[in-house]
């Protein structure tokens, strides 16, 4: 056992916490589920490998030459992958600042804050690197089996990308701290992380739509781009060469990424302590709330409940950033609509599933916040109102929120074509209602502050049901928008059967609300 207070001792403590967090996330706190989870993971891994096989088989068999076009595409894909890694790393760094958890204990201990935060940054790097390697696993394995062991080098590149993403995230978050202060960073860092996560994909799609009128990676293959990138001997292509199995490039990439992470730790770890203390004072900060009227208003009970839900939703920074991201993801779709509308084609039907999927995801978030994330459950349950009325008010709050966000988009679509707009409108309402029903069936009692980790406290069945229901309604709406009625009906029935299954497993108990 290592001596207490040393870097190794702290690192082992962090790794143990990471492992337990991961196990808790996978098992939702029930360790007896480990066997089931292991089987499910094997099945998912098998499926992912099959998918990867279908996608990369031909490249592995024919071989890939590191010519200019290949290097550009591989580098583009790596940048594409780096943006969610950077987003995740920023999210983790922000969490270190604002989640108090054990910081009070360790900051009041005689261990140097520099050591503590060096280890914390290291832990983030490990988590992000593992995430990157996990994403790459099916593709790398298939390429290695079919194309030779040299492809295993891609694991090293994935880990290096995790280290680079962490170094950049630490620098970016601390820069935000220094420029806009601890209070604003909490919200802005979340938004920046969301935008970074989406930016490259969105940018690529926008470029593709403007250039080719389709959604693809085609801008990376354009002659214009190839003509304007650095020459083939440039260090800019080392990461791509490393992925393609060049050992020298791999060593260089690994050394540079470790150096970057080391520099980030050396420069920023000593400053972390001060910034964490600054962040701690944010929770004590006063938010003076302005409102139009400082007098009580007379409202019916249902409206009082709805108003409360909407006020809390509107004051939730994380939900705001999530909503912004949903809207950002709709940008390429909107551009696609504009582009095809002007070119007179009917391809804007493709917009419908994107809108419905976004509404399903957002509806699930809103439903969790309204139904499970009740901060004052005792108050609501002991109020002289029937449980059904409370539940209806919450459902109305969710559906109202969705309607407000998506109505302008549906209206815009209606100008292009009425049928897709009708299909989108119906799909949005039905998918949001389905997400709400699933939340009602798998309601948990949680604090709103747990929203960011709602998947951890939620049932796995609820999580998958929400995702599959959203996908099924999106497909149903898209087919309805295209006028393929029979297939649309079939998929609609699948969506309904998902909800029926959820209902049968866990029927909603609207009578008791919290009285158990």
């Amino acid at each position, binding site marked *: 056992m290592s001596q207490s207070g040393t870097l190794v001792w702290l690192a082992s403590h962090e790794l143990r916490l990471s492992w337990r967090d991961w196990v808790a996330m996978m098992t939702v706190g029930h360790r007896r589920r480990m066997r089931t989870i292991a089987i499910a993971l094997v099945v998912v891994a098998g499926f992912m490998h099959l998918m990867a096989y279908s996608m990369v088989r031909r490249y592995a068999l024919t071989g890939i030459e590191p010519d200019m076009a290949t290097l550009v595409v591989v580098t583009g894909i790596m940048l594409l992958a780096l943006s969610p890694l950077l987003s995740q790393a920023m999210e983790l760094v922000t969490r270190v600042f604002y989640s108090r958890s054990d910081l009070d204990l360790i900051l009041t201990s005689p261990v140097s804050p520099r050591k503590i935060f060096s280890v914390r940054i290291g832990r983030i790097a490990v988590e992000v690197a593992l995430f990157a390697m996990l994403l790459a696993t099916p593709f790398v394995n298939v390429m290695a089996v079919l194309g030779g062991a040299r492809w295993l080098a891609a694991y090293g590149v994935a880990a290096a990308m995790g280290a680079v993403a962490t170094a950049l995230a630490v620098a970016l978050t601390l820069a935000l701290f220094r420029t806009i202060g601890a209070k604003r960073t909490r919200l802005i860092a979340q938004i920046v992380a969301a935008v970074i996560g989406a930016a490259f994909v969105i940018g690529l799609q926008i470029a593709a739509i403007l250039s080719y009128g389709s959604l693809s990676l085609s801008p990376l293959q354009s002659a214009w781009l190839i003509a304007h990138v650095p020459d083939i001997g440039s260090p800019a292509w080392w990461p791509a060469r490393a992925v393609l199995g060049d050992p020298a490039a791999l060593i260089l990439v690994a050394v540079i990424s470790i150096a970057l992470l080391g520099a980030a730790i050396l420069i920023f770890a000593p400053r972390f302590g001060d910034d964490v203390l600054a962040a701690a004072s944010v929770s004590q900060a006063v*938010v003076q709330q302005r*409102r139009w009227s400082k007098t009580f208003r007379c409202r019916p009970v249902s409206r009082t409940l709805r108003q409360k839900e909407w006020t809390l939703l509107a004051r939730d920074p994380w939900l705001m950033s999530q909503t912004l991201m949903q809207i950002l993801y709709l940008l390429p779709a909107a551009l696609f609509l504009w582009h095809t509308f002007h070119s007179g084609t009917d391809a804007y039907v493709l917009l419908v599933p994107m809108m419905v999927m976004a509404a399903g995801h957002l509806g699930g978030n809103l439903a969790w916040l309204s139904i499970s994330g009740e901060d*004052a459950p005792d*108050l609501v349950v*002991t109020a002289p109102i029937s449980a059904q009325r409370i539940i209806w008010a919450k459902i109305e709050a969710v559906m109202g929120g969705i309607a407000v966000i998506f109505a302008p988009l549906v209206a815009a679509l209606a100008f292009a074509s009425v049928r897709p707009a009708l299909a989108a409108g119906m799909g949005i309402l039905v998918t949001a209602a389905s997400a709400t029903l699933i939340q009602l069936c798998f309601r948990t009692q949680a604090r709103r502050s747990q929203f960011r980790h709602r998947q951890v406290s939620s049932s796995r069945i609820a999580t998958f049901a929400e995702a599959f229901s959203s996908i099924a309604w999106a497909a149903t709406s898209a087919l309805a928008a295209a006028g393929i009625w029979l297939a649309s009906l079939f998929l609609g029935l699948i969506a309904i059967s998902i909800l029926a299954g959820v209902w049968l497993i866990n029927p909603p108990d609207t009578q008791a609300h919290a009285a158990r």
Partner: protein
Amino acid sequence: MHSPTPAAIMRQAKRPIALATRGLTKCFDRPAVDALDLTVYCGEFYALVGPNGAGKTTTLRMVVGLLRPDAGTIAIEGIDALADPIAAKQITAWLSDEPMIYDKLTPFEYLEFVAGLWRIDSGVAEARARELIGWLGLEPHAHERCEGLSRGMKQKVALAGALVHDPRLIIFDEPLTGLDAGSARQVKNALRERVAAGATVIMTTHILEVAERMADRIGIIAHGRLIAEGTLDELHRRTGKIAASLEDTFLTLVAEPVATA
């Protein structure tokens, strides 16, 4: 705490009942509340004390509708709380030791919300809210979000929420937890004032001194059963320790086997 005269006892016998539980039972892994019969009279300050895990909070959570009993009945001012919970809740207030309020609302907005839930006329509710905010020293924070308030301040906001609808039965579970001495005194005064105005207060507490000084009657609960009940003098007489403190009496009583109760 004063001992009631025989005349007072006679009067009490004729007093209307604020809360009556009969055969109230709740089992989790083991019985938490075991066929509990509890009677609290209108206008009474009743303290429910007992060791940790005795079933105090479970009992009160069933009374206010936060837990469903496995068996038994609950009547609040003659209203069957299980058959007509809405009517029972209309005259009841609940406050737990953990202040559960909305961090993103201001105290003023929180009280407006509570008044809306209890359907109190907005004019009346606002006047009461302003009075409570002033009385609890929350004026400087009335329009700040609750997330920035200290735990004690949040407890005060929750207390104001419990009182803003002018309940006839006030049920508090450890309401003094986390409050400073001044705030604790304010709460105690508020509860005495409410009792003087005719409301009924039922309170659990671990601070036996508070029960000793404030309660008209004290119920001692252990293993989910009421093992002793009465005025302080009655409890002293039962243990044969007339000059003892409530703490001595309490420890003697809870040490007795449940079967002798």
